[in-house]
């Protein structure tokens, strides 16, 4: 019969008959079109909703293109017994993917790198001293991965924190930029990410104009860095507005 654990045969997902897909753009080709028809400096439309999970103290759902993320916040609640006394609060982050998030079926394991990046992006924004001796748990689940997963997780998590009523200096909005050949492409999708020469991720608090997390990969020259950072900062402030509206709508809806 089926589904005997331990005796599952090895499986593979059927690939396209063609061995390799042609690259989505050619080198030095300046006027290629992005696979989803966006402009280079155009973000995907963002959809945010708070209160996605009832049993959590705060939660949010974010959808940008095919990237779908849900984040729950629990706490502030008692820190684990083994933890030493701390006069500031603790932040605990965990990011995991569903097995069906990626085109190839994954294992659905925790993503340690994302977890620590999320932690670093958020800790600067949260007023940890407002909840001593306790822990705030931020758990994220990537339902579907469609590129730029981490920035979406970060933005969504800050919204969930706001929904949970955790004191923050500002919302954290995050955006990534991919460098493809000579072009800078904002908010890349999965396909673009797999061809990128370099990437830049920026998380910031838009109204304080403070960067909480920043990473680069690949080779960047100074003018490119300036341009990419400016692009990200602008996009973050726009994203911040969208997030703010979402919170306001949720608040006014609950008042009614």
């Amino acid at each position, binding site marked *: 019969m089926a589904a005997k654990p331990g005796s599952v045969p090895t499986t593979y997902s059927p690939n396209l008959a063609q*061995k*390799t897909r042609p690259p989505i753009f050619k080198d030095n080709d300046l006027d290629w079109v992005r696979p989803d028809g966006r402009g280079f400096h155009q973000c995907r439309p963002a959809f945010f909703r708070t209160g996605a999970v009832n049993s959590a103290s705060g939660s949010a759902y974010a959808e940008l293109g095919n990237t779908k993320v849900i984040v729950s916040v629990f706490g502030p609640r008692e820190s684990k017994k083994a933890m030493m006394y*701390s006069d*500031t609060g603790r932040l605990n982050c965990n990011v995991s993917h569903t097995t069906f998030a990626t085109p190839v079926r994954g294992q659905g394991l925790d993503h*340690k*790198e994302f977890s*620590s990046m999320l932690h*670093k992006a958020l*800790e*600067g*924004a949260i007023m940890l001293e407002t909840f001593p001796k306790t822990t705030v748990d931020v758990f994220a689940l990537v339902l579907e991965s469609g590129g730029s997963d981490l920035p979406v997780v970060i933005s969504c998590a800050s919204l969930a924190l706001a929904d949970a009523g955790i004191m923050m200096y500002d919302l954290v909005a995050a955006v990534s930029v991919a*460098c493809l050949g000579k072009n800078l492409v904002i908010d890349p999708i999965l396909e673009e*990410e*797999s*061809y*990128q*020469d*370099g*990437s830049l991720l920026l998380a*910031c*608090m838009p109204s*304080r*104009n*403070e*960067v*909480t*997390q*920043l*990473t*680069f*990969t*690949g*080779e*960047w*020259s*100074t003018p490119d*860095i*300036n341009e990419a*950072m400016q692009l990200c*900062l602008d996009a973050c402030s726009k994203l911040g507005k969208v997030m703010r509206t979402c919170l306001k709508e949720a608040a006014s809806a609950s008042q009614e």
Partner: protein
Amino acid sequence: MAKPIPKVGSRRSGRSSARKSARRIPKGVIHVQASFNNTIVTVTDVRGRVISWSSAGTCGFKVSLRKKSVNPFPLNTCSGFCCTPKEMVGLSAGEKHFIQGGIAQDLRLDGRKRLTYRPIYVETGIIPQAHGSARVRLGATDVIASVKAELGKPSALQPDKAKIAIYVDCSPTAAPMFEGRGGEELSTELSVALERCLLGGKSGAGAGIDPTSLVVVEGKVCWDLYIDGLVISSDGNLLDALAAAIKAALSNTGIPKVDVAAEATGDEQPEVNISDEEFLQFDTTGIPVIVTLTKVGKHYIVDATSEEESQMSSAVSISVNRKGHVCGLTKRGGAGLDPSIILDMISVAKHVSEQLINKLDSEIAAAEASEE
């Protein structure tokens, strides 16, 4: 191999001597140390626990004596790479103030300026079993990197690129908190940061090591590189030290030349002969160095010791290659930074990296020469 003179007791000089030897002195001790233009007064109890420490003669006995009975032993603490400010125990308010004050005056605890590195010592070829290895010491930070190459098959998605992986391990010898699985979090964080800074983007652009140069037969055979880092002793700035060790290990690496014996058809793996005599050397000029700028107060410093790291508000690690291009960047630490400050840090890092690359290259060359 030029083994350094056993640096017995070198660490017993300076401040740590106060802590260390105090254990053997049966009474409370006041240590007065005149350094540069400051005078440090350190009061320790019998157990070596610093009761108070102040600079310029302002010695306040503010710490209540009751506190002494709580912790009968000096707390051996390590502020790791990820240590957040305030979490580091073992530094008194006076000590913290002293560190911060020194940095503000451009005169750090060990007499360095803000943008000066500690002396770097490089030893290469210390692990004969590996294809390449190096040990780098930066002050009391001590790391080993080894490179091992294994014949493998490139992935179907990128048939012209070999796999390069970096794993870092934190030995519990460096700090008791790395015991068991305690070092795992830091190890992953360091590995990820190094991969980000040294291996370039997804398409391989900007990588220090060219993954196409390791391919023997496209789509069939390639050398997979496994780079292992081991932290033996940690006194801050692990990332820079590890990156330097990896650079040194790679320039020490010789990969055996491979001849393809018979051209295989279809899906078969071609047979290969591994040569014993001819070795392939890497061109390591393109490998970037990592410069970590740690922000303490309003200023930033390079090559922070663990005491200084405990006082940081945030730190930015920037990897810069010889051309002055940024090859990777990671930020850590909670506090936010103004974008203009980040840009300024990048330009400072570029400036510092020039000296660092030159210094490191000459150290590597000297180490290689002494090895032969």
